Structure formats: C-alpha cells, structure tokens
C-alpha cells in the first residue's frame, strides 16, 4: 500500500510512535577487577534492556561496532546477517534517508521502526543512530547556527535539532548521538569558530535531552544519548566542552532540561570520530613540518576530553585506522567500542584478514618483550570479535 507524502506527514506524529513499552535502557558496567584507573585497559559489560522483552544479548567490551551503509551491513544479505551472532552494536547514520521527505523510516510504524524498516533484529542488535556517516570525511557545506549539513545521494541537506529530535522519536533507535558541530573544513579553526562549535554542540545536546512527555504525567528522559567530544585539536576547547557537560544547569537551561541537573547526567557515553580528528591533526602537522604519531596525538586529545568526566561511562571510537591503533587506544585510553569499518572495507576490496591476536607463532613470540595475556577467569568466549586483553603496561 503506497502512502503518499502528504498523508504521511499527518501520520508523522512522533508521540504516537513512542510509548513506554517500546523504550529501552542502556546500561554499562565496568568490571572492577580488570580496570586500571581512568586511562588504561578495561573490561565491561553493555546491556540493553527493552521494556517489551526483546533485549539483545549482553556485549562484553572492548567490542566491535558493525558499520553500515545506507542503513544496512554492506554486502551481507539478510539471511546471512540473521545467521551470525557477531552483529550486535550496529551503527546507522540517518542522512541517506533525507533523500525523501518525510524520511521513509519515519513512516514504518511499530515499536521498533528503524529495526523493522532496515530488517535488523531487536533481539540481536542494538541500533545506534547518528546523523552523519562517521567515516565520511569529505568536505561539505559548513554547519550553521541551527543546522548540521548532511549528505545524501541528492546533495547536501540541513538537519536542525528540532527535526533530529522528531526523527529520533519516530524511529526509536536504541542509542542516539546528539547533533554536533564538527567542522569538515580546513584546520586549525579560528578561536571564534571553535567557540561556535562548543556553543552549538552544547545547545543541540541540551535540546535532545529535553524531557519527552510519554503516556504518564511525570516527564522522563528515556533516550540513551551519546555525545561527540568536540574541540578538534585544541586542548582548551576540549577541556571547556567537558567541563560544560558537568556544569550545574541554571535558569532557563535548568527548566528546559529538568529533571537533569547537568547535561552529563543525561549521557550514556562519549564518542570520538577519528576521521575529522585525524584530518585536523595531519593538517596541523603539515603546518609545523613535523611528522606525527597521530595515534599518540589522538590519545592525548582523548585524555584531555575524558579527564574531567566520569570514568564509568561508555567510550566509543569510530574509524580507528588499524588493529594496531585499536590496541593502543585500548591500552592507553581505555576505549570500550570500536567500529569494524577497517575490516569491513578490507572485505569490500577482496582482502581476507588472516592475522590472529594474540600472536601464537613461537618464532614471532621469542622476539616479544610483552607479558603474556591476562586470562579471563570465567573463560567465556566473547560475543563479536575475539579481543583478548594484553597487559602491555610494563
């Protein structure tokens, strides 16, 4: 049955979609016996509890995110996606749906419209929704005071915080990333531009964290929200953004975001998109004429952003450049989720990955200065990729 767009806009009432029954709560708990302070390797467990009972299996972290293209896992037909247990946290970006107005997933209906439309399984997959493809680093029209520029096949579109909030409420993703002002134009940014980044990103996060009136009298905030740690390569900007998240809300902000007293209270975790960050770092390095250990620089910037913030919240990295970078960020920062885009892209190119970790080849091991692996005492195979923790601190 075809739904014409004008009929659809009358159906398009987000409050009709969202009900208490279709809400879900993301919880993340660190395993205290395997943590090493604020920055260091850590084990954790992610759970998504859905009120309607379709909860997916726990995810043991560090774990991998499955990257998608236009809402689906590239190249895998649905029956194959259904066969594997390795696809858990699934990162979807909304921008391709702006090719039609209204965006078609908002017309789907049901308790989990985005899962249903894209044929992802609520009992297996956590859908984490952002507006842009974290891996798309192409130059794009600048963001504005009230919008993020997004890219679809038909060109650049504008996503306002209001529209984002209503799409999110219509589609019911399990986890959502707030709109952020991350410039994709030349680095370094002027101070004025950086200030705008901080102000906009803060305001847009606050807008998403406004309570949602459901079917009861108490307003609650049931979305599971992540935020990009903005600030580019500027330590001061990063520190300022983190501190803003922790500031007690006052006046109008407090009314709007109530019952939250700080923005951080409404957050489940922190996201770092390495594509724009790496581009900024490389541009800076070119200016200085010095070669860069970009991973070390990334790690230092992540430290600055995370230092003021609670250790116990989820840390997500998109577009790590290699398995080596993943291991270093696990060791030096303590990152919980990485996307598998590098590996997925290798498959697209026809490259099968045949390395293994930990290294078991005696010929290679004899040259290693590392300690042996920490054995997970309950010995369970971990969901998703097999990531084993190595204590590389000494």
């Amino acid at each position, binding site marked *: *049955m*075809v*739904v*014409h*767009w004008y009929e*659809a806009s009358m159906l398009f009432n987000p409050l009709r979609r969202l009900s208490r029954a279709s809400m879900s709560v993301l919880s993340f708990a660190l395993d205290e016996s395997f943590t090493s302070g604020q920055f260091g390797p850590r084990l954790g467990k992610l759970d998504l509890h859905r009120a309607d009972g379709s909860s997916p299996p726990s995810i043991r972290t560090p774990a991998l995110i499955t990257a998608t*293209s*236009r*809402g*689906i*896992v*590239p*190249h*895998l*037909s*649905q*029956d*194959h996606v259904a066969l594997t247990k390795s696809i858990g946290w699934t990162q979807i970006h909304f921008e*391709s*749906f702006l*090719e*039609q107005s209204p965006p*078609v997933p908002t*017309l*789907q*209906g049901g308790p989990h419209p985005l899962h249903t*439309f*894209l*044929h992802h399984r609520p009992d297996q997959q956590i859908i984490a929704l952002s507006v842009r493809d974290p891996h798309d680093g192409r130059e794009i029209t600048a963001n504005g005071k009230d919008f993020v520029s997004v890219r679809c*096949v038909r060109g650049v579109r504008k996503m306002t915080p209001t529209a984002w909030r209503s799409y999110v409420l219509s589609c019911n993703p399990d986890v959502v990333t707030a709109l952020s002002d991350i410039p994709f134009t030349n680095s370094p940014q002027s101070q004025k531009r950086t200030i705008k980044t901080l102000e906009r990103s803060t305001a847009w996060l606050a807008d998403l964290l406004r309570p949602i009136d459901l079917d009861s009298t108490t307003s609650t905030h049931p979305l599971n929200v992540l935020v990009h740690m903005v600030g580019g390569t500027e330590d001061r900007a990063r520190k300022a953004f983190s501190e803003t998240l922790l500031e007690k809300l006052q006046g109008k902000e407090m009314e709007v975001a109530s019952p939250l007293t700080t923005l951080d209270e409404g957050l489940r975790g922190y996201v770092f998109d390495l594509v724009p960050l790496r581009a900024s770092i490389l541009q800076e390095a070119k200016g200085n004429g010095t070669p860069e250990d970009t991973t070390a620089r990334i790690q230092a910037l992540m430290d600055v952003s995370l230092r003021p913030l609670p250790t116990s919240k989820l840390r997500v990295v998109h577009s790590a450049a290699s398995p080596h970078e993943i291991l270093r960020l696990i060791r030096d920062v303590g990152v919980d989720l990485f996307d598998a885009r590098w590996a997925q892209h290798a498959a697209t190119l026809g490259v099968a990955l045949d390395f293994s970790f930990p290294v078991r080849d005696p010929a290679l091991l004899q040259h290693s200065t590392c300690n042996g692996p920490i054995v997970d005492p309950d010995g369970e195979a971990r969901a998703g990729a097999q990531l084993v923790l190595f204590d590389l601190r000494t």
Partner: protein
Amino acid sequence: MQFEVLAKCPTTQARVSRMKLAHGVTLLPTFMPVATQAAIKGLTPQQVEALGINLILNNTYHLNLRPGIQVLKEAGGAHKFQGWKHNLLTDSGGFQLVSLNKFTKITEEGALFESPFDGKPTMLTPEESISIQHAIGADIIMQLDDVGRAIPAFLPDLDSLWKAVSSLTVGPRVGEAMWRTIRWLDRCIEAHEKSCRTDIQNLFAIVQGGLDPQLRDQCLDEMIRRKDRIAGYAIGGLSGGEAKDVFWRIIKQCADKLPSDRPRYSMGIGFAEDLLVCVALGVDMADCVFPTRTARFGVALTFSGPVNLRLSKHQADMAPIDETCPCPTCASRTSRAFLHHNVTLETATAHAITQHNLVFQARLMGQARDAIINGTFPDYLRSFFATYFGNNGYPEWCVNALRSVGVDLLEGRPDVKILPGDGAKWDRAA
C-alpha cells in the same frame, strides 16, 4: 542420465518429466539460473540451494579463461570449485565467442578468436570444447555449434547487436552453419565417447538452421538419426532478437519433431510468458541471465508483472514485493520502500531481489508442473496471462502460439487488447 516422462498435458504438448543425473534428480520443465563465472552473482551456493534450485548453468568460455582448466582440474572440477553439490550444465563456449569477442573467425576446424586477456590467437575446436567441459565436469554438456552468425564487429549495445544478428539469420551462411554444426556434433560425440565419461556427463546436441524451416527440418532429421548417442536436444540459434512470432514457430517445429524420450532445451529463454509458451510447445528446460540480471538492475518479477523498484512510486510502499512469495526477501516482509532506498546502490539489495526473482522463476515452473500433472495446464496459462498482463493486453504472438496447441487465451476475455510485436510488459512511472 535417466529420463522418464511422468505426465502429459492432454491439450498442449507440455509434459512433466524426471531427469536423474550424477548430482541428483531434477524435475522438468524447469528454469536454469546462470552462474556465469561459477557463481550466481551475489549469492552463495548454500543460498541458491536453499531456494530449491538444483540445476544451474556455468559458462565454458568464462571458466576456460578464468580460472582455467589447470585450476579446475586441481580443484577436482567445477562442482567442488564453486561449492555446488547439485546438477550443472555447461554450454560449449561457442555463443560467447561470437557475442563477446571482437574477431572470431569460424572455420571448419573450429572457432579462431583472440584471447580477451592477452590477445593471443586461440582456436576452440569441438574436441577442445568437449575436453574443457570434461575438466569442468558438468552433468550436462553441450556440443560446440556454429551459431550461424557472421563475424560481428564489436557492437556498443544490445540493440545494435540484435539488429545486426536478425539480419544475418537467413541466407547461405545459415545453411553452412547448420551443416557444420552436424559435423561438429559428430566430432563432439567421438571426443566424448572416447573419454569414457558418458555415464556421468551427458552430451546434448543443438539444433540449428536459423529461421529457415527447411534448414531446421534437415538439421532435425540428421540429429535425430544420432539419437542413441545423444542424451538431449537443445534448440539453438534463437533468442537473438528475431521476431517473437517467428521464434515460436521454430520452437514448435523442433519440439514437434524431436523424440519425446529426450529432454528439450530452449537456450536463452527467461521471460515468464516465453517460458510458459515454450513449455506448452513441448520444451523441458531453459536458461537465461534475465531474471538475475534484471534483479541487479532493480526489477523484481511478480505474477502481476515486473516491478521496477527504482521508480518513486515504490518509495513509501511498506508492503513486500509479493505477499504470497516464500523467498527470504518477501517472507521476512522486506518492504518495497526499503528496497527502493537501496536498489542499485547496495549490493545486499541486489542479492535480496536476486533471491526473489529466482524463486519467482521456480514458482512459475513449479506451478506449471503441478498444473500439467493435474490436467489443468490450459487453465494455468489463462490465469497466468490474465494476472500478469492484466489490462495491458496480450502479446499477439503468445495468443497465436498457444492457439496452435489448443489453448485459446481469449476465452472468457473477448475484449482484451492484442499487442503486436513482443508485447513485453514493463513497470512504468505512475
């Protein structure tokens, strides 16, 4: 091969038969999907098997070039190479030589062509073709035939190829090709019998003669004389752009004369209406790239006609392609809107539509078999055409062809339009 006719349609020439080959039983009539380079594009062999398909085609021309005979022999044959456990049919490589190669010269010895990879002049003889097909190890192998086309210059699009080819299917070249095909058949039979593989690989002859009924008749006579050394007969030299009203008459002429205790295979037929007409005329098997290729291009086949998922009229349609279809795509209720969003942009969507189209072809033929067994095949034909073409109009050639075997498509539908030409149905923008 064990071949047994199980049921005959009391009205038309259709029949249901059972063909037992080295890799299992296939019920006929059937449609064979084409796994050109040892794969149905986008699908694993397990996925193809799960759709209920048990006979597919491989192309000798492509496999000979890549991976080549050496690799195939080391792999233990094409079944093992591609992981396909069921029946395989290979063509001889002759058609691709003419359609894909710039400079192919047909001589009595064989077909002389340039390798597309290194330009080396290479000769494909009947003996060589059989030898390659032995290495591939398909359950049914085809003779090398002289398709009867003059050397084509490279033609930029299918339309020009069809135009060029249609004009070359009459004249002395066609007769020469027909007689050569018979001589090459003899050489193929010799080469095959010498190999002692006749119990596991079954050689089919290919009837040629262009669009000339006399030439066709002579070819039929000669090939039928060799019946005891041939496992089945293909009807070749068609589906090259000739007028449909001529096409069916050649099919009918061949099917009427060919022995009933041998399978009949019309090469390169894939449109639903074409398949059903051929079945009514007495054909048992057909192959075509159409259903899988059109899937990748965004067109889903249904019993109400093709659905072009690229059209914006499907953009907000939350219904599946076909509510009654058991394919993985429809059974999971994948919406047309979702397919529209990703069609031609994501390979996974090509896979989804490919699975659907293969199941459509299988249902088309499966329902035909059931109807033939139940004696209701004429009713099936009438209801298929009514649903598929609806008020668009019936292709005139279908009406003519089915009338020739006792089925009046117009019965009960006196005011349906009759369309000249091929009358194929396409999904258009709203």
